[in-house]
């Protein structure tokens, strides 16, 4: 479910903020954090992004390998060039493309604690999440919108449609 959440968050962000993803169109970007056994694949097409499990076959336009510290910095909106200089990251492919993806992820205000808990267990995730929250006080307005949009989508997904319609009709 978390990849679906990440995909929906990023697409909501792209749509509502009219983010130009033209430069990323038809690009496939792999992102992996070995310490968390996290392997994601981002495919941009038709003004949207697909977030999938990284597969073995096929070539990526950009392959990003991070350690957990760099992963944390990614959510802080760090520059890839700085991370490369400090040997925190390994990129095969265009650094510019990788940076565009990183900028989008940083904008999304994703709950990194929730994301990482699937891979690390709750305690490490909580510590990571706390660190990120300390530096992430921006974009509160957007965050509320994203949370609301996700809440609506997940409600529709998990509640029988007739009940969902009833609920919506009685709350708006």
């Amino acid at each position, binding site marked *: 479910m978390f990849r*679906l959440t990440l*995909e*929906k968050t990023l*697409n909501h962000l792209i*749509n509502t903020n009219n983010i130009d993803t033209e430069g990323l*169109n*038809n690009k*496939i970007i792999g992102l992996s954090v070995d310490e968390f056994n996290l392997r994601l*694949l981002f*495919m*941009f*097409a*038709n*003004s*949207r992004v*697909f977030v*999938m*499990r990284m*597969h073995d*076959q*096929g070539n990526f336009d950009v392959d990003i390998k991070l350690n957990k510290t760099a992963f944390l910095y990614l959510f802080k909106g760090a520059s890839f060039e700085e991370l490369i200089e400090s040997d925190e990251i390994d990129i095969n492919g265009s650094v510019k493309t990788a940076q565009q993806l990183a900028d989008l992820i940083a904008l999304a205000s994703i709950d990194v604690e929730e994301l990482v808990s699937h891979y690390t267990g709750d305690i490490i995730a909580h510590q990571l999440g706390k660190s990120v929250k300390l530096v992430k006080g921006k974009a509160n307005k957007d965050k509320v919108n994203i949370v609301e949009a996700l809440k609506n*989508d997940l409600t*529709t*997904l*998990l509640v*029988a*449609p007739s009940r969902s319609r009833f609920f919506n009709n009685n709350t708006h």
Partner: protein
Amino acid sequence: MGKTTHFGYQQVDVDKKQGLVKGVFDSVADNYDLMNDVMSLGTHRLWKNYTIASSNVAEGDKVLDIAGGTGDLAIKYREKVGPSGQVILSDINGSMLEEGRKNLLDHGIIDVEFVQANAESLPFEDNTFDCVSIAFGLRNLTHKNIALEQMHRILKKGGCLMVLEFSKVENEMLEKLYDLYSFNLIPKLGGLFADDEQSYQYLAESIRKHPDQETLKTMVLDAGFGLCEYHNLSAGIVAVHKAIKT
């Protein structure tokens, strides 16, 4: 008998399968939605909701719902694409399309197009759709590989294929219970609610003959899709394969 294929657990002539499947769906069309609710205890609605939620369909998109039958997915896709988008419901079976047409009219929907078509020779131009979806239809096709190639052909670059289908249960214990349920209860429920035990026996058998998750993923990639992954629902009773034309 020439080249054969499976029809449930029977081996039949390749040329005859389509007609036999047609017979099954002609017979079950009237009670299709009711039987889906009875057999899955309503869970099929959650499976379909998950499929639509993960399709990444957006406003203005063009969506083809293959083997769309009674139209329950088409209704939801239409909500997603909005007035600027387009949803086409296709099915090879006229009786199922008729049920779909009635169902959509009951929902006040008049702008979904209906096309009676064989999924193995889809009457659409190359690179037409943003999303092609097939729910509980692929296992009934005679040449699944050809149908997957057709779906790939009509999708735009970056378009998404969603396949919701019964699959291989992950847990051995659950699999035994599921077998017991499928082969003993489902045909009886078919007899009780739809007065048709035989068609529901076929449905249970056809599920077991359908490729498992990994095999279907390989078939999808072989059809030309650049990316494919699957997500098991209800412990693998069904799986959603999502593929992108790269």
